[in-house]
């Protein structure tokens, strides 16, 4: 039992709820939000330290032991994601201080941001499948509000589509849970893993696992990404950044968790399907990214490409490739938040998101331009930045498992990604400066603090990859040996 495990859920929840009581006092709200996230970050770091020393940390809520009660499990994988998620949401929050208009601030942007973080952290920590569904809903309801808050026409329109898709996906999730419960009679993930291993993963369970892949694929925009480009371009830039950095990653987390812990017996079926879905996702995402001349759309399609790439790493079911996928997942959360923040700043300075009307921003905003250049290189996986290590490990795994065609697809799509972000850089920052400083729609200040924190992390993760890899490998050790997870849940008092 370790009560610390519940704090990453509790701290954002309580600070979020408390903010509802002083709606007009925005400065106080900001302070509470920053402190809440800093505390969450501190707890996550302590958890990483404890797990590195003592192994997986478990909390049986209310003292009800597994598999009867709800269990919260913090293994290294969850703790690393928690840490990254807290840093990323903190950066997005600081950017939101400068980029959110007062009306939105007064109508509970910050409380819902905290509730979103609460849902994300809960999804990472829970050890119960139905509880995962509940935390998904916590996260999604907060995201519906954040997406529609402000009520501009495009926001309302996109929120309708987003909610409709997510309700269907959630209900398919419930149906998949029902099927699984009918077959194995439990919902605790450790217990599920045990029972599925006992009775063997037969055709029925494999079919159910594919239904889960469909559900998580919808949330993670794995192949079923058609809702993403529209809905992520509707909200204000800070909100879009936190969506891009966290929401699809929760879907990826669930895929990794379920397909390494429970449905790992028939990789030739499930994981092969995953790899080909990933390949299609990468191709279609990359085509979208190079086709558009709209800054928001290009960045949104980049989210899709990276989801495909990470799922390719998972599908290889190879320990090194899984380490690569995990490392790339951490990198991608940071890099996506940064590029969305910078892209949002570009759009707010130029007052348009049509790339053809943006030009020569670098003369007045050198910091913005060079940060953008840095993160563009990191996204394409240029050493020594953080994208490189993960990419190499996944591709090595792909070559070893002889998925040459998918390896070629990932290399080509990462070139296309590089082209798409360089297109933004060259068109937006170089060229004739068409706006004088007085004509600009906003000053673009406020990106410097969050931008430099995230950029420093990208460089550190790249240079200190060996040091970070120690933790990532610890996380992968639990993923490839489900017995460690199961033992921790059942033997810890």
């Amino acid at each position, binding site marked *: 039992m370790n009560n610390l495990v519940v704090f990453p859920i509790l701290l954002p929840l309580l600070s979020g709820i408390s903010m509802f009581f002083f709606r007009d006092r925005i400065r106080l709200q900001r302070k509470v939000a920053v402190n809440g996230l800093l505390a969450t970050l501190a707890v996550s770091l302590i958890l990483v330290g404890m797990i590195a020393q003592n192994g997986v940390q478990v909390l049986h809520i209310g003292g009800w032991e597994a598999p009867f009660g709800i269990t919260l499990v913090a293994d290294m994988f969850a703790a690393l994601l928690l840490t990254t998620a807290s840093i990323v949401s903190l950066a997005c929050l600081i950017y939101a201080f400068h980029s959110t208009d007062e009306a939105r601030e007064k109508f509970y942007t910050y409380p819902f941001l905290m509730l979103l973080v609460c849902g994300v952290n809960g999804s990472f920590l829970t050890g119960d499948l139905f509880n995962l569904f509940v935390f998904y809903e916590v996260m999604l309801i907060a995201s519906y509000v954040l997406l529609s808050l402000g009520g501009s026409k*495009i926001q309302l*329109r996109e929120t*309708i589509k987003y909610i409709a898709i997510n*309700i269907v996906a*959630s*209900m*398919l999730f419930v149906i998949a849970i*029902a099927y699984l*419960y009918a077959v194995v009679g439990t919902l605790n993930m450790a217990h599920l893993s045990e029972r599925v291993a006992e009775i063997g993963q037969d055709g029925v369970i494999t079919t159910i696992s594919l239904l889960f892949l469909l559900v998580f694929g919808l949330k993670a925009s794995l192949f079923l990404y058609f809702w993403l480009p*529209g809905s992520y371009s509707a909200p204000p830039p800070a909100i879009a950044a936190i969506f891009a950095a966290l929401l699809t990653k929760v879907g990826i987390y669930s895929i990794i968790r379920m397909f390494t812990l429970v449905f790992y017996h028939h990789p030739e079926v499930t994981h092969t399907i995953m790899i080909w879905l990933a390949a299609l996702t990468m191709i279609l995402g990359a085509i979208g990214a190079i086709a558009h001349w709209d800054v928001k759309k290009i960045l949104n399609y980049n989210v899709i490409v990276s989801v495909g790439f990470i799922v390719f790493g998972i599908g290889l079911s190879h320990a090194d490739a899984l380490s690569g996928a995990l490392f790339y997942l951490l990198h991608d959360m940071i890099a996506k938040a940064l590029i969305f923040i910078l892209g949002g700043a570009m759009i707010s300075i130029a007052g348009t998101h049509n790339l053809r009307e943006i030009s020569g921003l670098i003369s007045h905003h050198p910091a913005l331009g060079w940060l953008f250049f840095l993160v563009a290189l990191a996204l394409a996986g240029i050493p020594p930045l953080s994208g490189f290590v993960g990419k190499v490990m996944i591709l090595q795994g792909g070559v070893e498992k002889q998925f040459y065609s998918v390896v070629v697809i990932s290399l080509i799509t990462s070139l296309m990604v590089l082209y798409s972000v360089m297109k933004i850089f060259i068109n937006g920052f170089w060229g004739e400066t068409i706006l004088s400083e007085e004509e600009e729609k906003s000053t673009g200040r406020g990106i410097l603090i969050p931008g430099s924190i995230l950029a420093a992390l990208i460089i550190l993760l790249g240079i200190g990859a060996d040091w970070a890899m120690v933790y990532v490998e610890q996380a992968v050790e639990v993923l490839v040996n489900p017995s460690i997870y199961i033992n921790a849940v059942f033997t810890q008092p």
Partner: protein
Amino acid sequence: METFMTIVAGILLTIGTYLVLSRSLLRIILGLSIFSHGAHLMLLTMAGLKQGAAPLVGEQTGTYTDPLPQALILTSIVISFALTAFFLVLGYRTYVELGTDDMRELRGENDE
């Protein structure tokens, strides 16, 4: 009994899907609501319907009904209730702001 309930759930899911595919926003919201009910019924049915006494210590029988699916379905109903309420408000607001509830006119243009 389980087979019958599964068929009922299937009919509800069919109706839900049919309504979601229509053009009017209100029909879509109601369709999603019926779709959720189909899923909930499925959740209850899949775990097996009433098989014994109420799961209380005082009941003197050998078999008890599994209480877990009822706890699950309750949670899920509450969530879908909240979502439907939110979606209805959003639908109304959209109708007021955009002046239409026809999905074809809500496709949007690129120049916004």
